């Protein structure tokens, strides 16, 4: 008789809490779904408190309080406080529009550990145009100063695309001037809103390659002064990204209405069954929800992934991208040069068009 021990399910490290999909900005690459959830469906404070306690018990160490704009929640301070009380490292991911200096002080007193502010460009006029919000840049600069004044660590997040890709160096200078200890340079990832705006956002191959080289040079130049983390422009990559560190392996995402997703874009994959925290505990969802089990491990893989030496490194890439570009969520991410559909990605990357953005906007139900 063969007795083999079932591989132990890893415990999650991080939880992305999408507290609301409401946001004053209209960034055309927003990672929220096209069908934004309504305020009336949002979880209440007590439910978030329960989620955080269950998350901590499950092994989650860090919670990312995000949105939409989390500042749109009137109970943001109470929510943050419950996350801190559960023993979690609390990170606020904000557009800065909607968080006053007073709120920030209250958040700090509630135990907030870190603040990430998104900035659309180092050029204020361009930044406000990308965000579709006049005066946004000035408010971001003001809140960044307040974060630093309160002694909280600050990360500046910059999503890179054709309209700002040539200003990465000035973005890093700006982050340094703001007093940030870290900058995240994330090339737009083409799902949802960014997919809708892909032709208007896509940089040329030359721009993308120059940007990657520039980030390397900036890292050397600013070594020890600011941490530069980068998300690669994956349409121009040879290997896919290890999306969310492997499906159902490191993190989970809770939507404003309580649906729990293996990644923020997972709802675009048809046929996946998502469970809600209103009906299941987080531990039950992590272990048993069909959506989490669907692409966990490597049993679901096809060739070329199944026999690939990198299958435990990049996990076949991104399931959402595989579905969006090939129609099969279990295919290799076509960003991978080993994918039989890789040529499609190169063709899509070459489709660039001048034109207006379709801004991210909520349609009232």
């Amino acid at each position, binding site marked *: 008789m063969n007795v083999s021990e079932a591989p132990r399910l890893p*415990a999650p*490290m*991080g939880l992305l809490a999408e507290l609301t999909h409401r946001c004053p900005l209209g960034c055309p690459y927003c990672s929220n779904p096209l069908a934004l959830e309504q305020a009336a469906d949002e979880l209440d404070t007590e439910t978030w408190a329960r989620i955080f306690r269950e998350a901590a018990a*499950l*092994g989650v*160490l*860090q919670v*990312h309080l995000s949105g939409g704009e989390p500042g749109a929640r009137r109970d943001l301070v109470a929510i943050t406080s419950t996350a801190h009380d559960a023993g979690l*490292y609390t*990170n606020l991911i904000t557009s800065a529009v909607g968080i006053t200096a007073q709120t920030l002080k209250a958040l700090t007193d509630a135990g907030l*550990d*870190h603040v*990430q502010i998104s900035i659309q460009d180092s050029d204020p006029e361009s930044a406000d145009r990308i965000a579709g919000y006049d005066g946004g840049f000035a408010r971001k600069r003001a809140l960044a100063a307040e974060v630093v004044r309160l*002694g*909280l*660590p600050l*990360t500046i997040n910059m999503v890179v695309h054709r309209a700002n890709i040539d200003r990465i160096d000035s973005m890093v200078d700006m982050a340094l001037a703001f007093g940030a*200890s*870290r900058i*995240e340079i994330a090339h737009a990832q083409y799902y949802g809103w960014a997919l809708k705006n892909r032709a208007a956002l896509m940089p040329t191959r030359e721009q993308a390659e120059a940007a990657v080289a520039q980030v390397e040079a900036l890292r050397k130049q600013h*070594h*020890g002064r*600011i*941490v530069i*983390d980068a998300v690669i422009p994956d349409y121009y990559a040879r290997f896919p990204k290890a999306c969310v560190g492997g499906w159902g392996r490191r993190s989970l995402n809770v939507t404003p209405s309580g649906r729990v997703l293996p990644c923020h874009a997972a709802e675009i994959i048809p046929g996946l069954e998502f469970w809600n925290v209103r009906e299941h505990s987080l531990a039950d969802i992590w272990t048993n929800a069909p959506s989490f089990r669907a692409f966990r491990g490597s049993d679901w893989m096809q060739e070329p992934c199944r026999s690939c030496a990198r299958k435990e490194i990049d996990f076949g890439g991104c399931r959402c991208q595989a579905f969006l570009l090939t129609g099969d969520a279990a295919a290799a991410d076509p960003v991978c040069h080993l994918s039989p559909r890789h040529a499609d990605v190169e063709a899509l990357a070459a489709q660039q068009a001048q034109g207006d953005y379709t801004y991210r906007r909520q349609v009232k139900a």
Partner: protein
Amino acid sequence: MPDERKPRFPRGVRLVNSEAHGGWVLLAPERLFKADPIAVEILKRCSGEATMDAIVDDLATTYNAPRERIAADVGKLLGDLADKKLLEFG
């Protein structure tokens, strides 16, 4: 040459023991690092009170190991962490 610098974690960085993850983890802004057993012994001593010399002396005594080797290990680990903004010297 005496080393009187006092290493400590900056705000937003902390060392926690996680049963679920089988050991000590250094939590930092949007990042986390699993600490190996040697690193843990060094990091636990970064209180902001102890000097580099005191930390090295303590480790050399506790583990009955050559002081120079300990000093080199401690200097390298903490220097690398400082470059990544995960540690500062008071």
